[in-house]
């Protein structure tokens, strides 16, 4: 078929961690001018495969080829020399260095042995313009929001003028606008003959962008074919091996008139003077562009950051909790977005992670029951399809499975109000479906769910109401009947402001 | 003027009442605290005589570099006299030379600095200490036998001098076999630990040459806890050791670094500032404690801290006599 040698390829590579095979004889070939999708459930081995391709890990068997020639010992340095750039998710940045210094990291332009800051500024600026980063180049990356950091990461890859660009879930923390910029950019780069490997759990992106797809299932390649003629349902079938159901569950509103949380003139972090009623039995969506203060709203309600309010009632108790333990006692639970930094103890066993909220609430010196903990853990794992030994450290889980653990740990407490910060980021479709089912079931049981999401379809199809946040205020409160991607996006951009306010 | 000044560094241009600086190397240990007590008492006396108006105390917290900085500050504040225990036998030499050139009376006692740019040094003779201790011990074990040597920290002049002082005696008695030597801080606990291990490794010992501080009490406790016979041991005037000596009926000998060296240094500084002739080195004879006078010391024990040192009595007469000696 193709006569051109692939720019980068894996031939029958295998990889095992501590005796557990993760990849078994997987092949993939990246052609110039093609966006190649790599799909698979959480833990299928996608990240591992790109780590092999980029030299961050070495395969146990099989070969990595560049321009048709086998490279016996691939390393990150060799990969870069071969023009391979990888966008890890938020992995390679250094918070205390500036945007420019991060973009140039590992490949600084030099003059007399010193970093040529002028040249660096020029080249970094060019890369920033490509991805629409307009912050001053001297800003420390630590000051940026998650989504902007992701853009820095992408700029870092582009800075190297790669021939092969590998992106591991680049959009999971991006806003719709940023995603759009990235899509256009990738389309253009493809036109310039760059080979692109694209990993995502957002199938609409994959459908729109990619020409070819490789699907991994349990470490083996189950499909390697052009995307043309396949629909999203077909892709899911390839990934999970059976017919997919609907992504979003069917549900009936069960909203009552009682409120779980009421706040008036609530301020926390970026949020200013917000009035909000969260009702029992509803899923309240929080939307808006990234970094408008949505997260501060959740954290403030949860007592994790200082908050002020004129009046507040939380599950019948007046006043804000004013501290996480108190919030927990009032039946609030929070699932953070950045699972690695805020959600999990990566070096601790999965089981311990799941039990932590319990440890935080039990009497400090009560003896633990390992047996009961094990049982709770196993049932949670079964419920959320977390496979394998629960004594492994959480870092051995793939990103999506880590997310499940971060969610699972609150389940035994049967919280009355769930505060969720982008809970399906990086989660595969099947798991997403399970999570959605859970959330609706939760609401149906008369509890309240607050769902902050950067995934607009999620807001549209899952929520009773959506509060769209702009510049620290609730710019619009959209009722179910008014929910659509357009209304949410236009409220977020400020376009529909007058209409809604009226 | 400078020409007819009697003592080193003194230019004769400083008039009473004087401000005295006490550059303490580390004020927390009990020995230091007792020493400071004698200095303060002496300064009170001198104040009454209108000779001194102020005592400035610094604490280098054991750091010789900080002590240098503090002495520099004393010079900067144009102090009249500096008395000091040096944190290093070499490090403060240059800053002291500076002070000396500014006509500041400098009296260095206890731990001395290798320099002549001071008004006077005041100390017991460390080499003699080691020599006398070795003489007593060798005599007590009958000129032959196996001994342990306990010494203060390595790398410090005082401990090195005392140890070297014992060398001649030890060489002269080849039948005295040194089983082991250790260096520890001059404290009870490390000495007790070291001696316990040494006793297990060397079950037969006849005597312990302990060169100061509270080391001897540690050794006695080590023997006692193992239920072993006490052996002849040398030591210093630490109250705990003297009490153990009496309690266990030890065959012992002790000398001391009298805490009143501090008072004497303050006294000497004022003498020098007043133009009196002060010898460049005032050698303090080593007071000896043995079975003949230990009761006298123990009788005064209650006046001293439990972890302190029972020093010999002193008065101005003694100071005058010491200064008069050539």
């Amino acid at each position, binding site marked *: 078929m193709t006569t051109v040698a692939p720019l980068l390829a894996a031939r029958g590579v295998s990889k095992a961690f501590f005796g557990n095979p993760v990849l078994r004889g997987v092949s993939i070939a990246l052609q110039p001018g093609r966006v190649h999708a790599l799909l698979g459930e959480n833990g299928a081995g996608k990240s591992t495969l790109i780590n092999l391709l980029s030299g961050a890990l070495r395969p146990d068997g099989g070969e990595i080829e560049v321009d048709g020639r086998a490279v016996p010992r691939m390393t990150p340095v060799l990969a870069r020399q071969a023009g391979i750039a990888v966008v890890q998710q938020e992995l390679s940045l250094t918070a205390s260095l500036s945007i420019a210094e991060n973009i140039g990291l590992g490949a600084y332009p030099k003059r007399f042995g010193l970093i040529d800051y002028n040249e660096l500024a020029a080249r970094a600026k060019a890369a920033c313009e490509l991805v629409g980063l307009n912050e001053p180049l001297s800003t420390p990356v630590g000051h940026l929001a998650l989504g902007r950091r992701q853009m820095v990461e992408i700029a870092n890859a582009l800075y190297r003028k790669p021939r092969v660009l590998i992106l591991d879930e680049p959009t999971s923390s991006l806003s719709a606008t940023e995603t759009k910029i990235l899509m256009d950019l990738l389309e253009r780069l493809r036109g310039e003959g760059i080979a692109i490997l694209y990993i995502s759990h957002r199938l609409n992106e994959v459908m729109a962008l990619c020409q070819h797809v490789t699907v991994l299932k349990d470490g083996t390649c189950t499909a390697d074919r052009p995307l043309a003629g396949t629909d999203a349902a077909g892709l899911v079938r390839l990934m999970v091996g059976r017919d997919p159901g609907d992504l979003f569950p069917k549900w009936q509103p069960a909203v009552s008139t009682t409120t779980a949380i009421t706040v008036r003139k609530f301020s926390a972090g970026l949020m200013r003077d917000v009035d909000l009623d969260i009702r029992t039995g509803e899923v309240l969506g929080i939307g808006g562009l990234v970094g408008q203060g949505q997260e501060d709203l959740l954290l403030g309600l949860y007592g994790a950051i200082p908050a002020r309010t004129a009046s507040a009632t939380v599950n019948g108790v007046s006043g804000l909790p004013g501290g996480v*333990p108190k919030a927990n006692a009032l039946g609030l639970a929070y699932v953070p977005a950045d699972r690695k930094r805020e959600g999990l103890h990566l070096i*601790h066993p999965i089981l311990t992670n799941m039990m932590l909220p319990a440890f935080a609430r039990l009497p400090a010196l009560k003896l633990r029951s390992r047996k009961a903990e094990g049982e709770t853990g196993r049932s949670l794992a079964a419920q959320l399809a977390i496979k394998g030994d629960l004594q492994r450290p959480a870092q051995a889980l793939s990103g999506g499975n880590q997310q499940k653990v971060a969610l699972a740990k609150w389940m035994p407490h049967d919280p009355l109000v769930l505060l969720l910060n982008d809970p399906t980021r990086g989660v595969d479709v099947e798991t997403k479906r399970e999570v959605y089912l859970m959330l609706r079931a939760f609401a149906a049981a008369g509890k309240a769910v607050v769902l902050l999401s950067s995934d607009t379809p999620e807001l549209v199809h899952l929520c009773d109401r959506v509060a769209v946040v702009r510049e620290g205020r609730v710019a619009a409160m959209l009722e179910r009947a008014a929910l659509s991607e357009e209304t949410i996006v236009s409220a977020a951009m400020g376009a529909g402001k007058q209409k809604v306010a009226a | 003027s400078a020409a007819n000044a009697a003592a080193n560094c003194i230019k004769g241009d400083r008039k009473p009442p004087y401000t005295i600086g006490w550059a303490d190397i580390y004020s*927390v240990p009990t020995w230091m605290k007792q020493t400071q007590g004698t200095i303060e008492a002496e300064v009170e006396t001198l104040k009454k005589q209108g000779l001194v108006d102020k005592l400035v105390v610094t604490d280098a917290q054991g750091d010789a570099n900080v002590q240098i900085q503090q002495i520099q500050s004393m010079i900067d504040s144009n102090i009249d006299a500096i008395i000091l225990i040096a944190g290093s036998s070499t490090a403060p030499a240059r800053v002291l030379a500076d002070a000396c050139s500014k006509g500041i009376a400098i009296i260095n006692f206890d731990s001395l600095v290798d320099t002549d740019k001071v008004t006077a040094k005041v100390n017991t003779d460390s080499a003699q200490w080691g020599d006398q201790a070795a003489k007593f011990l060798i005599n007590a074990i009958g000129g032959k036998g196996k001994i342990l040597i306990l010494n203060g920290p390595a790398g410090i002049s005082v401990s090195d001098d005392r140890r070297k002082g014992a060398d001649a005696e030890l060489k002269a008695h080849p039948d005295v076999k040194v089983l082991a030597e250790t260096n520890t801080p001059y404290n009870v606990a490390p000495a007790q630990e070291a001696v316990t291990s040494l006793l297990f490794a060397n079950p037969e010992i006849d005597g312990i040459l302990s060169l100061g501080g509270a080391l001897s009490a540690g050794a006695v406790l080590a023997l006692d806890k193992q239920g072993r016979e006490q052996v002849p041991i040398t030591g210093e005037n630490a109250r705990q050791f003297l009490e153990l000596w009496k309690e266990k009926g030890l065959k012992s000998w002790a000398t001391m670094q009298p805490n009143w060296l501090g008072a004497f240094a303050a006294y000497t500084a004022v003498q020098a500032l007043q133009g009196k002739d002060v010898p460049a080195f005032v050698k303090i004879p080593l007071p000896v404690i043995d079975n003949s006078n230990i009761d006298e010391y123990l009788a005064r024990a209650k006046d001293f801290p439990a972890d302190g040192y029972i020093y010999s009595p002193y008065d101005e007469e003694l100071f005058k006599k010491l200064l008069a000696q050539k």
Partner: protein
Amino acid sequence: MTAWNDSAGGKRVSAILKSRPFLTLAIVAAVWIVASFVSRGFGAYGHLRYLVELGAVIGLVAAGQTFVVIAGGIDLSVAAIVTVSAISLPLLSWQADTTGLVSVLAVLALTTAIGVVNGLGVALLRVHPMIMTLAMATFLQGLLIIIAGGSAVTAENPLVHWLGNARPAGIPAGIILWIAVSAIVLTVMHATPFGARIFAMGANPLAASLSGVPITSTTLAVYGISGFTAGLAGVLVLGMNGQGYVGIGDPYLLASIAAVVLGGTSILGGLGTYAGTIPGAVLLVTITALITVVNASPGWRSILFGSLILGLLLLSGREQARR
């Protein structure tokens, strides 16, 4: 694969054999055996018993230190606290207190309070533990100037004397105390929610806080425990020496940290166990004793000591990659 290796029990046995505490224990045993061949008396029962008794003091200080290190901190004030404990006990004595128990409890309350103040600085003022506890050590030096030598009374506290000298059933009371403390510490650390909170706090304080772990009170408790065990060590060392003095605690600062790390606890926090610290403490006193009986110049002895620690660390001390 052998059959027993597949069984659950076999797995547990092999896990224990591979664990850091066991490795440290094995190293201690090996050092003891080698040393007793080299030096006749070294391996005598009495000597080993004495070493364990000395280890008890380090072990007590290191118990609190292990908590603090696992919680992601470090306590540089333990040496000063040991000294304060040993020095202030005679000052806190009452005639009516015939057993001496009340004054011991008073001292422990004092040292625990010092630890809690450390915790306050770390948790509320957000001062880095190293700075907070270093500053606390400096404060305590000032306190010592005031109280040192302030009492002419020897510590004639019967309880303290008993701790330092008694040997019920031939076992030094200090060792019995250590065993009791170890049992409590291991239980609290590995079998209570409080212990789990400490590990969580050390591994990821932010995630722990968002999971509802009460960070402030846990921090106070951890440093309070460290103050308490350091105080207990001060009482024991006072009994063993018959007399407290300024500087009596000095050797225990670096020793406690070394025991913790040699025992496999990560200095970065979040991973470890007191079960490793115990042999770690015995290992340290063993090496010190070994160096004492070697006849060499002070310089060589120091070099030998450092090399031994480094060598043992090579055997047991790999730090796992993190972050």
